[in-house]
């Protein structure tokens, strides 16, 4: 792997240069919370932050998007597909967990089996420059789900904060190309040693992994277990966990039509909402909190492994820090795991 360096004081110039050629999204503070937003200059970009409240998935799956629009009259129907050309896009300063979430989303929307042209259209232009975590939070559990505070999976370039400078790890060809164009300096030996030290220090700070050996098998056997009911009793069945989650990706499609003109719109949807599984007959196979929360867990920790060979959670902790009733997914997994071990379910 190639390693480059850049001084922290040069980051603003670095970003302002990139902005001339690319669309850039970076973490900024807006309305008292940190969010990823498209920026017009490096002003206001913050790199000392834990993580954004909303995940950056919106850049590849916007909360709502028009797929086609149409109009009909007596004898003709015109349909227009909305696949606008996308400008080259850099997601700057994303955390490694979020970078990994893009790999997961790729499996859902854009692999040999599944190919969603709207997703692919947006995704193909994305280059991710992520920022390793020197301050993992109490809600982070990325190492349990296969990542880590300096995991490079999903990133094209990964920055490591070594004090006055960042080391830039060059992960992909796409990343290498960008680095070459910018003519960055090679990292020195002592800088690389400092990088290793920083990484070790941070990895020691992260909470220990949850012990969840063969969780999938145990979950598969617990579908009808009685624990689901008590564990989810406080859940409000809102959309906070799913909408903030970087890997949750379920959607609804609606047609909005007036005077024979209309649009077909794709919108985020959530398995926590009662109407998500409501059938035309009026029957709902997931009528209560229990079935809906169970679906979220089973989907991420069992069905995703069947379908994509990857856990559907990157351990970012958003659903933990933002759940209005502190229903902590780690506690749920752990208690399910242990009650299953002791054969209580």
């Amino acid at each position, binding site marked *: 792997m190639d390693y480059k360096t850049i001084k922290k004081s040069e980051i603003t110039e670095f970003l302002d240069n990139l902005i001339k050629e690319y669309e850039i999204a970076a973490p900024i503070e807006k309305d008292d919370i940190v969010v990823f937003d498209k920026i017009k200059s490096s002003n206001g970009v913050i790199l000392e932050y834990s993580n954004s409240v909303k995940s950056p998935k919106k850049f590849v799956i916007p909360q709502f998007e028009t797929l086609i629009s149409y109009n009909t009259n007596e004898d003709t129907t015109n349909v227009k597909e909305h696949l606008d050309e996308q400008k080259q896009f850099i997601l700057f300063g994303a955390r490694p967990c979020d970078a990994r979430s893009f790999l997961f989303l790729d499996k859902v929307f854009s692999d040999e089996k599944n190919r969603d042209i709207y997703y692919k259209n947006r995704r193909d232009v994305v280059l991710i420059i992520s920022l390793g975590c020197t301050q993992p*939070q109490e809600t982070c559990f990325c190492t349990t789900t296969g990542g880590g505070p300096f995991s490079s999976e999903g990133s094209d370039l990964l920055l490591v904060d070594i004090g006055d400078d960042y080391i830039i790890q060059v992960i992909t060809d796409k990343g290498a190309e960008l680095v070459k164009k910018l003519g960055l300096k090679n990292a020195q030996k002592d800088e690389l040693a400092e990088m290793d030290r920083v990484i070790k220090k941070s990895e020691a700070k992260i909470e220990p992994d949850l012990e969840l050996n063969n969780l999938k098998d145990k979950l598969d056997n617990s579908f009808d277990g009685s624990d689901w009911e008590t564990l989810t009793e406080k859940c*409000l069945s809102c959309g906070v966990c799913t909408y903030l989650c970087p890997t949750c990706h379920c959607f609804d499609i609606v047609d909005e039509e007036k005077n024979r003109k209309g649009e077909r719109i794709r919108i985020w949807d959530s398995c926590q909402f009662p109407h998500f599984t409501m059938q035309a007959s009026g029957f709902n196979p997931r009528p209560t909190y229990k079935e809906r929360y169970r679906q979220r867990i089973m989907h991420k920790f069992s069905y995703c492994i069947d379908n994509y060979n990857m856990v559907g959670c990157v351990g970012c902790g958003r659903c933990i820090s933002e759940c209005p009733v502190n229903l902590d997914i780690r506690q749920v997994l752990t208690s399910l795991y242990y009650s299953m071990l002791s054969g209580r379910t």
Partner: protein
Amino acid sequence: MADLSSSIREEAKKLLKKGEADVIIGFEKGSLPLCATPCFIRNEADVEKLIWNEFCGNNLSRYLIKAKGKVGIIAKGCDTRAIVELIKEKQVQREQIVIIGVPCEGMVDRKQIMMRCQGNKITNVEDRDERLLITGDLLNVAVKKDECLYPGCQVCTNRNPVMYDVLIGSTSEEQQTDEFTDVTNFDGKSSEERWEYITHEISKCIRCYACRNACPLCYCKECFVDTTQPQWVGKTTGQTDTLLFHIMRSIHLAGRCVECGACERACPVTVDIRKLNRKMSADVKKLFDYKTGLDIDQPAPLSTFKPDDSEEFMLDI
């Protein structure tokens, strides 16, 4: 804050033992620093889990509607106000619940403190009466609790339970009466300014419905915003759709919202939901001289008719 946890545990134990309650809804220690979480206690042995502190912000009356059997509920001022309305609206039967009232001193907003910690991990929180001492790797701050209260708690004029079967601790003097100065100030702005403020707030909304689902009075079996046949409100987060959701919700809560602030606390993206609800409360006060959640015998203004009801809102045609 006086430690009321042990009295709460004792009371809960008594109720369970005597069979006066099948379940106690209260708070237990949360999984994060600065956090308590709702819990459901069914066994005497588990009452030890119950706690009371300045992070018990959730409105537990939200859980009464789906609870089965006889329910004991730990309730601060706003929770009891919601219970009053739920009983009036015949969603909860008074005989089915035992209210363990706890006087409140205002609840502390975890997120405000997290902001002050600037993303540094908290490892320890020490309670020193009016202050919290918060420490971490790169962190050592003292926070005055009453500087970090939720917006609604800062101005709450009914912190003592308004109705209870058992009172824990002792009530304290209420803050001054509510003059709705915030509403008057906002009304004083130009319509452009107000439009800009509200639409900006709405633009943050991600339609997660945590506000609605946390609200004790939002108990409709099917919310107008979820209905698909017919679909009253569009599903997008475009301005029209989102604004319609918030305005309709607010109007549906006129004369019913007890200003507990549960909606705002649940919102992950800081939407100022209070703005609309406060306006409704001010209008209800002005038109019907009614303040929600205080008196179980006073009929709800929008579900009763009096010949001399204010008709200011009628259009002259």
